[in-house]
């Protein structure tokens, strides 16, 4: 029998990064990656995006930090993290052993902090950074920058000066003009945008008459937000030329392909990791099988191919 000559190409490019497949892990749902090494092959991932890292360690919010809601969950972790120094000394050497690019999700309480973390990561084995200007769960840092055009311009200017590898801006669905912000990021040198971060939400304990989360508000994620995420990815991909990374409620390869067809060049898997710690590699395998079954040479041929009735 003649062997099939068609080789399916699942690789995609995000800025200067070449990923073997379009499936990454979403920040905050995959720890520092190593927690998952007994559940999946870390080398079968397109990229590993680690938990948000700040200049100094952060304690995070008081418990209760999460609660399940209809087809989703709210979280208000408060960006607990070990700080950039400890990340580089304790986690990165172990992560660097795997042949998968590591993307550091970074955040700060002011523009200066963001730039300082980026600078500290510039000469490390980290392959790229994802700048979180969209965390709804901290008083300072995150959401306050999400729609602050001046701050974003200053931030990107500062970061691009000290950080020469791939810079991804992670955008918030809580501002109402996500495409405009994406366009701004593109204009000021971002290599890609990723969206969406969580939607601000709340749960009430009727028996106790208190909020369920100590932080009162949390970020909604999971299947419940997928339609919102799809719409925002679609709108954004129509406006910008840089790659859009789709995030929000992706549970399986079909969800992932929907995002890709709607305009995403890659996807991130978040809450699904809690249900199935092997979810990202199953999504990657599913995409490959789909391409083979439908005789599609490259996943790139699917990006932004939505047909309109």
């Amino acid at each position, binding site marked *: 029998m003649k062997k099939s000559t068609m080789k399916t190409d699942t690789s995609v490019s995000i800025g200067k990064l070449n990923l073997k497949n379009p499936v990454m892990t979403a920040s905050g749902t995959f720890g520092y990656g190593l*927690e998952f090494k007994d*559940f999946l092959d870390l080398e079968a991932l397109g990229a590993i995006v680690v938990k948000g890292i700040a200049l100094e360690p952060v*304690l995070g919010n008081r418990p209760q930090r999460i609660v399940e809601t209809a087809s989703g969950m709210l979280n208000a972790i408060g960006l607990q993290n070990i700080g950039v120094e400890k990340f580089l000394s304790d986690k990165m050497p172990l992560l660097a052993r795997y042949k998968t690019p590591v993307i550091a999700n970074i955040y700060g309480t002011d523009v200066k902090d963001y730039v300082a973390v980026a600078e500290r990561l510039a000469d490390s084995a980290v392959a790229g950074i994802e700048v979180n200007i969209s965390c709804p769960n901290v008083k300072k840092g995150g959401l306050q920058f999400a729609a602050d055009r001046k701050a974003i311009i200053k931030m990107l200017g500062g970061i691009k000066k000290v950080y020469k590898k791939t810079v991804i801006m992670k955008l918030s669905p809580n501002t109402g003009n996500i495409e405009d912000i994406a366009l701004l990021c593109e204009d000021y040198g971002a290599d890609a945008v990723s969206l969406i971060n969580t939607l601000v939400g709340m749960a009430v304990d009727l028996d106790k008459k208190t909020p369920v989360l100590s932080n009162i508000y949390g970020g909604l994620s999971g299947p419940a937000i997928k339609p919102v995420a799809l719409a925002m990815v679609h709108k954004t991909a129509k406006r910008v030329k840089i790659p859009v990374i789709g995030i929000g409620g992706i549970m399986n390869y079909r969800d992932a392909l929907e995002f890709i067809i709607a305009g995403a060049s890659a996807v991130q898997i978040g809450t699904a990791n809690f249900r199935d710690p092997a979810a990202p590699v199953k999504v990657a395998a599913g995409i490959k099988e789909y391409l083979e079954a439908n005789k599609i040479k490259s996943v790139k041929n699917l990006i932004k191919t939505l047909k309109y009735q």
Partner: protein
Amino acid sequence: MKRLTHDSQVVFNRKIGRGIFHMRLAVKAGIRVKPGQFINLLVSDSYDPLLRRPFSVFDASEKSIDIVYSAIGRATFLMSRKIKGESLNFTGPRGNSYIDFITPGMKKTLFIVVGGGTGAASANYLAKWLRRAGMRLKLIQGAASKGLLIKAGEFCKKGVLFSTDDGSAGIKGFATDIVKKAASVDSVVFACGPKPMLGALKKAVPKGTRVFVSLEEYMGCGIGACVSCVTPVKVKNAGTKRVKNSFEYKRVCVDGTVFELDELVL
């Protein structure tokens, strides 16, 4: 890769009290569990419930795991309707063990094992382990009332002490009242139960008695990645220049579930 995801089959799922069920899961591939560890069950194929649910191991053999659970919400209600032969996926076992804290110097120690409510689950497996290891053991269970007592496994053996809040079985009062009488500085207390019970333990034992407790916190991943399940733990050398905070948040799912009571900020 270690095997940490398992497909299991329900062997039985019996009602053993008011809204309380005892479920055995067959694990063909084999499994090893230490007392105090938990499994994280995927209860439904749909996204309701979305997250896994953690349950302490009540008993285990090489090819099976038992849990005892109280049907209090969506997931546990669905679990209560599972019948023999149905499949359930779980991750784990995860977490540290009570026995990690047992030192060679404790050969003659009296171990007081306390389970409050469904906290009796991990107390059972620990008691079994201690009994088999030939250790001195006093087993105590507290519940709100008779119908909520878990009468299975080690709790069917002679010498177990019970308390109920309403006095419908055992002594009227709290499990900690029994601990108060039994504990001395030379004894070691292991406990699992609701937060108020764990807090009361501190006052129930003579100063210097070592107490270890297994905690429950709302979990996201159950594998140490999401920092949802944290509990405040005192920091050594707090107040010095390098250590700013008096406590830090530790993950119940992998840094615990068992902590020394003295270290916790309850």
